[in-house]
Every structure is written in C-alpha cells, then in structure tokens.
C-alpha cells in the first residue's frame, strides 16, 4: 500500500516535465521535412538558420554484415573507393583511362591466378606477371586526377569530410557553408550515379595498412577481433569489419562493382540534411540530382540468424600489453521490444560517477580505472551483445574485475532498482536528447540512423517515451533473461610472461 502511494507521488512529480519535454521535441519534430524520391531514396531535412552552414549525412544500409565468405572487408573497401570519383571527376581522360583500367584488371587477374597456386607457383612466371601488372598500374595511375573529389569539397570550405563503415552501415558525411548546397548535391549524386572504381589495387594496400594499424599492431583491436570470432557462431557479426587479410588481397574489381550494384540502390539509402537550407529548394535539388539514379531491387537482408548460445565461451589473448576485460551477453536488436530496457540498464551501470560499475569497480573496490556496460556491440540492426568493458587498475586482474561485474549483475537480477535511481536515468535521457539537438551533424546522423534501422526517424524522439515507460520490473526481467552465464562470452587480454 505504502509503496503504491510513493509511486503515485512520483508519477505526479514526473508528469509536468514529461509534457513540457514532449512539447519541446514536438516543435523540432514538426520542422523535419521528409521527402522520398520515386526511386525510393529518402531525404530528411531539418532547417535551422542560426549559422550559414549545413551538414550532410548519407546513410547506406549496407555494412560488413552483407559480406560473405571470401569478400570480408568489401563494404569498407567500397567506402574508400567512393572518394575516387566518376567518369568526369578524378580522371585526366576517361576514354583512355577506361582502356587502361580494363588492361589493369586483366593483368592483375593473370598475376593473381598464378599467385594462388601456392606450392605449385612458377616463380619466373609470377614475377613476369607481377611486373606486367605493375606496369599497367602505372599506366592507369598516370591518367588519374588524384584527390579531385576531396579537393572539390575542401576548396569550397567543406569540413569534417569523412566516411565510416561498420557492421551495419556505411556512412558518408561532411559540412559545408550553406551557399555551397548544390555542390554537395552534384558530387554526392555523381559518386553514386556514376562511380569509377579506380586506384583499386593501391586502395586495397591502404586498407591493409588500416588493418595493421587498427588490429594487427593494436592489442585492443586484436582482442575485439578474437572475441567476436568466438562470441558468434554463424551470424556475420563474427567477422571483422576491416576484413581478413587474405580476403583483402584477393577481392576483385568485379566483386567490388557487383557489391555496389547490389547494395547502393536508392531505396537502401537515407540522407539527412540539417542546417541553413530552404526545404523546398533542397527537395528541388534532391529531385534533380538524385532523381537521376535508377531504382533498383531492394537488396536482400542477412539470412543467417545466430542460433541460441548454449555454452559459456571464452578467449584469452596474450600480448605485450596490459590487461583488458571484455564480456558480451547475447540480446535482441535495437528493434526488440526491450530495446529501451537495455538502454536503461546501460545507463544505470555506466553513466557517470554515480553509476553502479563506477562506484563498485573504480571508486570502492579500486579494481579498475575504467568500467562500462553498454548495449549494441558490434552492431544494432541484428541481435547483438550487451557488452562489458573493464580496464583493470595496476596490479589488479581481469578475474577480480569480472567477479565485481558479476556481483553488479546479480544485484540487478535480485534487487529492484530504486525509484530515485530510475528517475535519474530518465532525467539524463531527456537532457542527453536535448544536448543532441544542438549539433547539425549529430542530428543528421541520428535522423538517418533511426529512419534506416528502425524504419522511422520519429523513433529518435519516441525513444524517450519508451525509456520513460521502462519499469523496475522490466529491468529485473531483462537482467534475468539476458545475463545468464551460458549466454555469455568472456575475452581477456593478458600480458605475455
């Protein structure tokens, strides 16, 4: 009875700000203009005229999950290739270049056919073929107008020009002074309408260097790769986004072209434009420039579903490096009905110095210098992991950190989270959402993500309602379902000795 009245009081206290927050967000929501081209490409435009700048975010719903055996790393390679230009950007003479590129692919294919013979390779022949390949590569490179795409943006004042590839998606982004709106339309539509795969073999070398930097010469990168390989049995989340080195070596030009054709169809892309623009004019330009891209069949999703995990798994990596602990529990995707509960648990465990993991592992037990639990690893689109990450303090072990994390998990399962603690989570979610609104680039990113992955950009705002609806019982129920030993994988980085 008493408990009920407390809850009632709390509810009353919550009502006013829930309403006002919603009103505030409604204002922003009502300003978002949604426009879908006939070919299926969706634009989300949020005009804001505080400064004469605009941010662009192209979200392509293709990532490493869409690769298959033999072509790991291709989504990311294509992201690199998308900066190489078109038939009239990045070339000195496309007619000549086209011939040179065909010769280049032929010479590479011939060399590669010999190279893969392994023990049966004819080394004289191999050298001849390699020389021939390098010669044709030089010939093709001589026709490239190197860096033209980047230069076209940078010289007009573009900043933050970059792209990223993850397990779920490939994203391209930049910001421009707002009078250069049409520049972006021209370049961005051209690169997806008329891309030329040039510098392909050199760019693969660049990607291999990226792999060496991020994974092979980086102990934490290595741990993540080893960990995912064990955590997943069959879903492509098990594969490294950067790709296996043998695949990077072997991926062909034709495979890259086919991958583009299959996945870079307009209906598989969402574009966010936030900043000093007139939505009407923006839509006109969108129709004019992106309307040129032909529609294509919707690409297939990932067929493989990760089977239920039956046994606890673990991996130990020994390196000349200090200890790191990584733990992952299988859980539902961002579209799972419990998605908001995962977010709440993550906040309770990890947000700030009042979070449970900070208080336990860092402040009180002094076991770690960093400790977090977060949802959505290595992606969010498909069922993924609720992951824990701890950096043990000097002289402390991964085992001690794991035991302390386990204690916190047991507490979540057994004891109801206090109302005050849950209220704080909800307050923070609201404050974070408001802060997120302040950045043009951040909003362009968020809007496209929610549209592409959850099917509706409005979920960015509805998420707050869903978090507000999470109950103490939800948290306990989800903790008891997800945090089960047979459902987890433990990865540890241990120093060599």
């Amino acid at each position, binding site marked *: 009875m008493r408990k009920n009245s407390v809850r009632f009081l709390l509810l009353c206290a919550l009502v006013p700000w829930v309403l006002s927050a919603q009103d505030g967000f409604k204002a922003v929501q009502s300003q978002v203009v949604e426009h879908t081209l006939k070919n299926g490409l969706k634009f989300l435009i949020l005009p804001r005229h505080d400064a004469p700048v605009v941010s662009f975010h192209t979200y392509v719903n293709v990532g490493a999950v869409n690769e298959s055996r033999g072509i790991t790393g291709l989504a990311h390679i294509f992201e690199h290739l998308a900066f190489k230009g078109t038939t009239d950007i990045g070339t000195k003479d496309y007619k000549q270049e086209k011939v040179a590129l065909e010769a280049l692919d032929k010479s590479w294919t011939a060399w590669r056919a010999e190279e893969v013979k392994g023990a049966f390779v004819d080394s004289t022949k191999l050298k001849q073929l390699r020389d021939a390949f390098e010669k044709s590569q030089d010939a093709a490179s001589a026709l490239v107008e190197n860096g033209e795409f980047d230069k076209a943006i940078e010289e007009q004042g573009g900043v933050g020009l970059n792209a990223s590839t993850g397990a779920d998606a490939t994203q391209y982004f930049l910001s421009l002074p707002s009078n250069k709106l049409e520049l972006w339309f021209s370049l961005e539509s051209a690169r997806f309408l008329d891309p030329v795969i040039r510098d392909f073999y050199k760019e693969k070398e660049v990607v291999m260097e990226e792999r060496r930097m991020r994974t092979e010469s980086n102990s934490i990168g290595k741990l993540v790769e080893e960990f995912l390989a064990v955590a997943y049995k069959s879903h492509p989340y098990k594969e490294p986004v950067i790709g296996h080195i043998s695949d990077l070596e072997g991926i062909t030009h034709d495979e890259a072209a086919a991958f583009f054709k299959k996945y870079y169809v307009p209906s598989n892309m969402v574009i966010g434009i936030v900043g000093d623009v007139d939505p009407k004019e923006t839509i006109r330009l969108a129709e*004019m420039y992106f309307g040129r891209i032909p529609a294509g069949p919707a690409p297939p999703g990932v067929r493989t579903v990760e089977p239920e995990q039956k046994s606890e798994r673990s991996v130990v990596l020994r390196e000349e490096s200090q200890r790191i602990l990584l733990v992952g529990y299988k859980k539902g995707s961002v579209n799972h009905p419990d998605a908001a509960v995962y977010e709440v648990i993550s906040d309770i465990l990890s947000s700030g110095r009042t979070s449970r993991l900070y208080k336990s592992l860092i402040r009180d037990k002094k076991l770690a210098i960093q400790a977090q639990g977060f949802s959505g690893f290595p992606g969010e689109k498909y069922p993924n992991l609720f992951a824990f990450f701890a950096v043990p303090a000097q002289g402390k072990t991964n085992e001690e950190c794991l035991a302390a994390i386990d204690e916190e998990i047991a507490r979540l399962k057994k004891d109801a989270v206090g109302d005050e603690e849950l209220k704080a989570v909800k307050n923070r979610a609201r404050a974070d959402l408001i802060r997120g609104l302040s950045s043009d680039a951040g909003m362009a990113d968020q809007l496209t993500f929610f549209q592409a992955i959850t099917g509706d950009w409005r979920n960015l705002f509805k998420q707050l309602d869903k978090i507000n609806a999470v109950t103490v019982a939800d948290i306990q129920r989800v903790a008891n379902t997800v945090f089960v030993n047979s459902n987890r994988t433990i990865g540890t980085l241990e120093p060599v000795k």
Partner: protein
Amino acid sequence: MKTYRVLTIALLTFGFVFIGSGQTGSKPLQYKKLKYPPLRQVQIPEPLRFQLSNGMIVYLLEDHTLPLIEGSVLVRTGSQYEPADKIGLGSLTGQVMRTGGTTTKTGDEIDEILEKVGASVETYIGITSGGARLSVLKEDIDTGLSVLADLLRNPAFRDDKIELAKIAARSAISRRNDQVMSLAGREFRKLIYGPNDPFARMTEYETIENIDKKDLVEFHKKFYAPNNIMLALWGDFTADEMKAKVEKVFGGWERREVSLPTVPEPTLASERSINFIPKDDVNQSTIVLGHLGGVLRDPESGPLNVADQAFGGAQASRLFKKVRSEQGLAYSVESNWGEGYNRAGVFQINGSTKSGSTVKMVRSLTMEFENFVKNGISDDELKYAKDSYLNSYVFRFDTKGKIINELMTLEYAGYPKDFIQQQQKDIQNATKQSINDAVKKRWKPESLTLMVVGKESDFDKPMSSLGMKVRTIDITIPAPPEKLPDPTPETIAKGKEIVKKTLTAIGGPALLAIKDITLVGKQMQVTAMGEYSMDAEMKIVRPNKMIVQMKAPMGDMTMVFNGSNAWVKSQNGTQDLPGSQREEMLQQAYGDVHYILQNADRGDYVIQYLKDDAIDGNAMAVILVRHTPTKFNVQLFINSKTGLVMKKVTTQTGEKGPVTVEEVYSDYRVADGVQFPFKTVATSDGKKSSELTLTSVKLNTGIKEDEFKK
C-alpha cells in the same frame, strides 16, 4: 548504368547553356560548372564582457535555441608550473578539485546532485591552463553555478580521492607503451622539447609518490584567485539575470596576488638526428619527423598554415595524394605545423606503414618535405589551400560556444580580440612568394628529427641504411621506487644480532683482519652470442680498490678501479670507463659481503632485519644493508642455521631500466681462516648472466699500490 552515363553527359551540356544565360540550378551540373550565391553575411554576436570587482573576467552570450546553459572557465595555471620532482601534480589537482569535493560537500554528494538531473561540472588542469566545463538544463543553472563556484573556491582534496586519482595515474603509466600512436606522440615531444621540458616530461611512479595532499592544497591556493580566472557562459538566459547570478556566487571571493613563474623557451635542434624505438609486437612502423613549430602570432603564421594545408594538412594535400593514394604506402599520413599561443608547438609529419616498407616510407616522407621546402607550393596547391582555409572560415563561428570560447581564449593568451580577422586577412594576402619565403625561413630540413617505432628485423632495410648514427630510445617504464620499511630500534637490534652470528660463522677475527684478497678462477659469461668462459683473477684491496684480469677469447683485458677512477687496459690501449660503470664498481666494493661484515659497525652502514624467508627449504633471515654515503642497498639472505650468506639481492640500473640482480653463493670453503663461496651464480631479472668458479683464494698478500697506477 551505361545508358545513364550518356544521359548525364547530355544533361551537362544543357546545364552549361543555362549558366550562360544566367539561370543556375535547373539541371544537374558537374561541380566545376556550378556558381554559388554569396554566403549570407555572418552576424557574429558580440558576447557581453565585464569584470567583477574582485578582478574576475566574465563573458556572457545568450542563445535561446535550446533550453540549455553551458559554461567554461580558464585559470592561469598549468602543469608547466609544477615542480620537476612532482610531475603529475597539476593533473591530480585538476581532477581531485572535482572528485574530492568541497569543504561542505563530498565529491560523491556532488556527483549525486548533478547526475540526477543530467548536469555536469568538471574541472581540469592542462599544461598551459586550468579550467572547468559546465553543462546544465536551463532549470538547473543555480545548482550548476553554485557547484562550480564551490569547487573553484573551496576544494577539500579529500584523501580517498587523491588515492583514487593516483591509482589512475599509476595505471596509466603502466599502460603507456600499449598504444603505439600515443607512445610515438609522447616520445617525439620529448625529442623536440627535451625530456625535462614541461611540454614533454612524463609522470613517473616516483613523481606520483612524491605528491601528497598539502601539495594539491598549495597548488590550488597559488593560482586559484578570482583575478586569475575567466568565466564564459552561453545559452538560454538573459544577460542581466545571469550577471546577478554570477555576482552572487563569485562576488564574495577575495582578490589575491598571484605570481606566475616563467618557463624557459625551447630551442630548434641544430642538426638532424635519427631515433629508433624497438617494438616487437607490431607489424607496422610509425614514423614521425619534424622539428620545433611556431607561435600563432609569428608573422609567418598565415603563410605557413596555407603551406601546411597544401603539404599534408588535408585529404587533398600533397602527402595524402602521393604517399597514400599514389604509393599505397600508408593509411594515415599527415603533416601539422604545430603552433602554440605563447610557446612553440611541434611541427610534425607522420605516417604508418607495414614493417617491410619502413625505410622506403622514411625516404618518401623526407623527400617530399625536402622537395616542398626547395621547390615550394604550386599554383594549384596555393589556390586550393587558400580557398579551403577562407571558405571554411565560417565554421570558426558557427556556434555560440565557439564564438565565446574563441574570444575568451584570445584574451587569456594575450591576443587582440580581432585576431581571427587579422589572421583571415593574412591568409587572404598570402602569395606564392610570401608562402615560399616563409617555408624557407621556418621549415628546416637540416634540423629534422626522425623517429621510427617498429620491429627492425622485418624492415626492408636496417635503420643504419639511413646513413646517420641511429640513437635507440629505451621506453622501459622506470619501476616504482622500492618501498622498504624504515628501520626501527627493534629491527636494527635484530639485524645486529644476525650480523654478529654471521661474522663469527664466516671467520671472526680472520675476517676482520682482511686487507686484501686475491681470487683466481673461471668466469662464465652469458651473452647474446652465447656462453663463454674465461680465466679470471681478481685483486681486491680494502676499502675500494680492485683489479680484474680476464683472459677473454678476444684477448686479455685488465680492469682497474682505484677508488675514484676506473679504466680498462687491453690490446687497444687504455680507456677510461664511463661514470655509470664507476658507480657500479663502487657499489660492488661497498656491497661486497665480506666488506660489509668487516665494516658493519662503522657509521656508513645501516643494517636492519627485514623478513624471514627460505631457499630450497632452508630457513633464511633476510637483512637489509643500506650504505648511506652511496645511497645503495643490498639484501642478504642468511642461513639461519649456519650463519652463512647464501644470496645477495640488489637493484641495478640496466640499459632498459632497473634490473634485479641476484647472486647465489654455494660451495663455501675456508681460505686463510675465512669462509668463501667458491661458486657464485648471478642472475639478472631471473635470467642467468654469469657464473664464477674459484680455484684459489689468498688473503693479505700485500698487493702493491703501483698496480693501481695507469
């Protein structure tokens, strides 16, 4: 796709016609054919600036787009002012100022107050400034401001949070070689500024241990006065209201004189150097080259920033195009003309490449740099770099936060408030000539410092092929200072008792009467090339003279130490030994077991009982012997039954930091009435390093003084 290409070309032709007729944008155009409307005039709002009567400077800027208020604070302080034996003090003070709470609230209480409303107030101390950041929802501004003021004015530096910050600092030290990028950045800074410069020096276990609460309290007291602080607030408030709030929380803080120490200026290297950091767990080398950078107010700053943008500062720069896109040598490659506000930054060019192309990449980067300095910027590059600089200017002012912080920082650093506009003019006015002149004047191939981190055995060519002396940098982390218990009357008394027993066991009066010792035997040495044995003869004259003669495979060698100088005589003539080896000889002389026992009662030694231990099941008493004049100490493991010394443990300075050296003694035999171990096995950090087997020991043969002359 092919059909569409034809269509594009057709559309482009149309577009061109439209431009000619003055209408733009009704057909898709290739980017080169686009014309842009002028950028809407940027109205940069002027923040309100005022000073409180106590000298605190305040900037306010209204921004009503979201119900948020943010703030930042700058304090004239920095780790640049911390004493050299307490490196880390600034950083600890900056952290614990927040976590350690205030005189009226603990840090944990402040965490609760802020986090339950999604607010944050954090403090820090960097190298050249200290400060704070505040971010709150509009309705929480009073809470946020009062916490901010309380932290800056009344921090309590509670002990538990100092310890917590120290744990984090120690852990960071232990992990500092794990990530190549940060390792490379830090070591390069040390090369450019010198290892003891405030911009480069490193926190070590020892410097952390040297810090205690009163240091933090003093550091805060020294710099945190209102007249030494600037505050900026921007967001959803009215300036009048906010002015009153600021006055309320900071107005009562009394002005205090603050004096800022001067920091010596760094200097440009006078010659080239090549440095190598071995790291065997990587398959990619990190390469950095460069030299001391500039200061933002240098007259060449504008032209040099244009040059840097063209050379390696952006995606369409020369380095990115050549080294990454054309040669496929690297994923990351860039240059950065580093500028500080008031002290030179670091100019660096860096990139990473697979181990097998390390030397190729070094040559490629060096060549590109030399070429750029020699031949200068091209017309194309000039246009590109200037345009990208000037066109992206608007992003310096696209948020209220950037505007207000830029202004506050300029005032903090002593720059005019229209500096950005001046800088813009400088860049506008930069010509090919002025840029190339500036580059020739400030970019110095002859002063290049080169540093490579990687696994040399996998390199395409050895580092030495780069044609200069290669200096290898040791990044071993110095061990924390040994924490040995201080002597107490009890442990000293117990130590005395043990020594007395040992003295008797080893020889009593005969031991005390030793004037000189002659040892003959075989010395086996473990080296990188394998083990080898030599005949050895050692002559020791009390207190600290020594001659060691070895018949080594490469010829005879005699090492002499006359108590103050040491030299080696061999076929190659006579060579003096460096100071570190002299030090080692002194430690050997004063750490000699028989010598310690002979002189245990002299004032030079402090001997205490340390602990009980065991070797091979035999009980041992361990004593700690400190030799006060040389600050050197050894631990002796003494067999509790026989009183014989079975093991000696010392810490020595090795090439890669401190090394634990153990000598295990066995085969004790009596020579001229004194027990000597005829076998000594030495290990270094657990690995066997040498073995001495004696064939004879003679005492007091009257070794002549002449033998110790050069």
